[in-house]
């Protein structure tokens, strides 16, 4: 990567030498302003990180926030929302929205538990089936949006209800606990890895999140598909007249979102050792918040995957530091609201093209 930070790559066109020069030689004030807004979520992340270090309580002379255990907890806590937000970024880039992801997460958690515990399937078939269900669910929503021309807000609002209903029917309305072992009604031991860590430091869900994030970053940076995504969000009519397969891209984008929501659901089941049909309620809103804080425009056509990842981490750090200082959970919600508005307000200040 030739840019100073991956956060910017998705939004930046391939030829950026003037930009890079501007960072090293900040003579041009306009360039400073431009780059500030481009790196906005990264600056935000660094700022929140530094504030968190400053206000962190310390125990035995050690900064609690900076302890490896705490940092690992933060990444673990944001991994599910982060994975969903990655999918959400694609959807929002084409100017859509996916409200069904939280419910699909619940459906996937129930599916994982049921298939392993009740149906006695192994991990691989279970994961494949659940991922397929999520993908198919997303693709169906995408097809309805693309074919019938209904707004994605409405289609996925309906999808949210439907996925939640299916999850409750499948589970009988109750959470299905996952016990591990070799016997009947027991899931393979390996599934519990999802609640573990590598070398006792890096939580497995965090690893998956980072892998997905980096993968999505590369997709958005380097593929023709990504350029089609940006084009549709930028001007759908122009994209269609330029030969962009608008419908196919739409369906694919919603399928990606469904796939990643299902993946988050599997992780969810692994971390909690159960699959409950009510899991993931409201996750869609946290995911949208991460995307918005990351600087992606809800109007579509502009934004970056790096921003989304930074946005998810920023929300996680915020929650963590407020909790470390024993600040009431309800206050945390208010602070989260303020941060979202502040991030959006910063975007409004962004220099606009006449």
């Amino acid at each position: 990567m030739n840019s100073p930070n991956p956060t910017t790559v998705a939004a930046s066109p391939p030829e950026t030498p003037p930009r890079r020069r501007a960072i090293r030689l900040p003579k041009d004030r306009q360039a400073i302003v431009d780059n500030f807004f481009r790196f906005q979520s990264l600056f935000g992340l660094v700022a929140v990180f530094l504030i968190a270090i400053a206000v962190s309580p310390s125990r035995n002379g050690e900064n609690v926030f900076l302890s490896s255990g705490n940092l690992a907890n933060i990444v673990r806590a944001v991994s599910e929302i982060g994975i969903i937000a990655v999918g959400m970024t694609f959807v929002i880039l084409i100017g859509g929205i996916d409200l069904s992801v939280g419910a699909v997460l619940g459906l996937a958690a129930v599916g994982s538990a049921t298939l392993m515990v009740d149906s006695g399937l192994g991990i691989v078939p279970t994961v494949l089936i659940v991922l397929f269900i999520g993908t198919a669910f997303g693709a169906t929503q995408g097809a309805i949006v693309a074919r019938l021309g209904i707004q994605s807000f409405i289609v996925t609002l309906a999808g949210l209800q439907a996925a939640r209903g299916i999850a409750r029917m499948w589970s009988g309305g109750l959470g299905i606990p996952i016990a591990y072992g070799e016997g009947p009604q027991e899931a393979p031991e390996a599934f519990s890895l999802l609640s573990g860590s590598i070398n006792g430091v890096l939580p497995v869900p965090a690893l998956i999140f980072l892998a997905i994030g980096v993968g999505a970053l590369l997709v958005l940076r380097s593929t023709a598909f990504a350029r089609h995504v940006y084009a549709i969000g930028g001007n759908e009519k122009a994209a269609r007249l330029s030969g962009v397969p608008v419908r196919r891209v739409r369906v694919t984008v919603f399928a990606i979102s469904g796939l990643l929501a299902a993946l988050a659901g599997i992780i969810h089941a692994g971390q909690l050792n159960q699959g409950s049909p009510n899991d993931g309620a409201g996750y869609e809103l946290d995911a949208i918040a991460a995307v918005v804080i990351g600087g992606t425009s809800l109007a579509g056509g502009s934004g970056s995957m790096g921003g989304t990842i930074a946005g998810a981490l920023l929300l996680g750090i915020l929650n963590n530091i407020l909790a470390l200082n024993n600040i009431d959970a309800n206050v945390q919600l208010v602070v989260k609201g303020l941060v979202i508005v502040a991030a959006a307000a910063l975007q409004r200040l962004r220099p606009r093209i006449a």
Partner: protein
Amino acid sequence: MTDRPLVRMTGIGKRFGGVHACRDIDLTVTAGEVHALLGENGAGKSTLINVLSGVITEHDGTIEVDGEPVSFAGPADAQRAGIATIHQELDLVAGLSIAENMFLGREPRTRLGTVDIRRMRRQAEAHLRTLGADLDPRRLVGSLRVGEQQLVEIGRALSLRARVLIMDEPTAALADAEVERLFATITELRRAGVGIVYISHRMAEIELIADRVTVLRNGTVAGSVDPRVASRDDIIQLMVGRSVDALFGEGRNEPGAVLLDVRGLAVTPRRPVPGRTEPAGVDLTVRSGEIVGLAGLMGAGRTELLETLFGAGGSGRRAGQVTIGDRPYRPSGPRAALARGVAFVPEDRRGAGLMLEHSVADNVVLSALSSLTTLGLVRRPLLRRTVAEQLTTLAVKAASPSIPVATLSGGNQQKIVFAKQLLMRPRLLLLDEPTRGVDIGAKAEIYHLLHRLADSGMAILLASSELPELLSLCDRVVVLHRGRTVAVLPRASATQQAILAAANGDDVKESR
């Protein structure tokens, strides 16, 4: 006809930047008169009516209403003075009823302060009756046909006690029967002493209803005549002026074999869209190396024909045959069209041609992405090279390929649209008003480009409302009227008069 002028405009002038949109124009409207305003695009008609309707507030010259000098601070002032405008794009709210639209913003109130629905309905009904319209005022405007919506607009003007009514191309979107009804309404209004400023491109209509014709050309009055005395040729001569200077010399290559062959092409839309004229019997051919012009009045169906040929038109039943090369051609969409070597530069550059906020490079490569990728991955160096080449070939003036297209001038934006389509190496290039909103320098460059492309063997079909452009560029001009081919004029016999006559000619026979 009385001689007392309702409105007298004297010495009206307006500059936009350094350009005179109109200069020293005099215009009077008397009670009970239909005063037609004619002129080509850019002749200054819109500017003049915008001054009269209070949209343009700063201008030279004076306006008198009933002999009293007035100065409008906005459209509301003009309305209060009794001047109402019916724009081509109707200003109605589709989700509200006829009565609600007529009284929008000045609804009659009851003593309690609520809207007096009954009174509103009664008054709306009365106005509709005056216009001879049998419409229930409770109907939603969105469910009305365009002609009926126009009547609602006129009804609103009546409810404002308008004494001068400006109508901007009122028949552009109307069917024949609706045109007749509109003319009956105009006759009614004239009898009631309303003065009407009537703008249209259709000569036949003007002969039918105008009492006086003022022709604008290049922002000034070219002449004011009585249509019952002046012949149609006289009026066209006034509009066009002296013969047009060709922008460049000739010396073109001989055209090759027929590339595009269209026979009896017609589209019957499943759901007709108001204001669209789908092809209704188009015959034309374009040889490779040939530039064929597409002429016609507004609403003749030029854009719709090009869209149909690009697979981007309205859906519906298709009749007739289209072949490209020797194979039948029936594109399922723009993607399929591009795959067959057909490219399209749409009329609405900003709305349909470009992603304005995206970079020059992103726009240029959008269509040709698949040729710039390996396994779905973009080959950056190749992409960069391709963009650079394309920008050089078309002499695009852009500081860098990474700046947003929106920062470029109109001419350079248009070159980006061309660059994007030309990267597909098309055999047939469909152009819809390719020089609209482009300055004269960029215009000449685009003309040169088109000649170069034709000389390299490309077939070009070009729709334009600027007749001088068609005449100087095209080997042949196909004239459309209401979606049908009505004339094919070879270069030798194509003159502005001939094209306009053809575009209007059948109008007379039909509307009777």
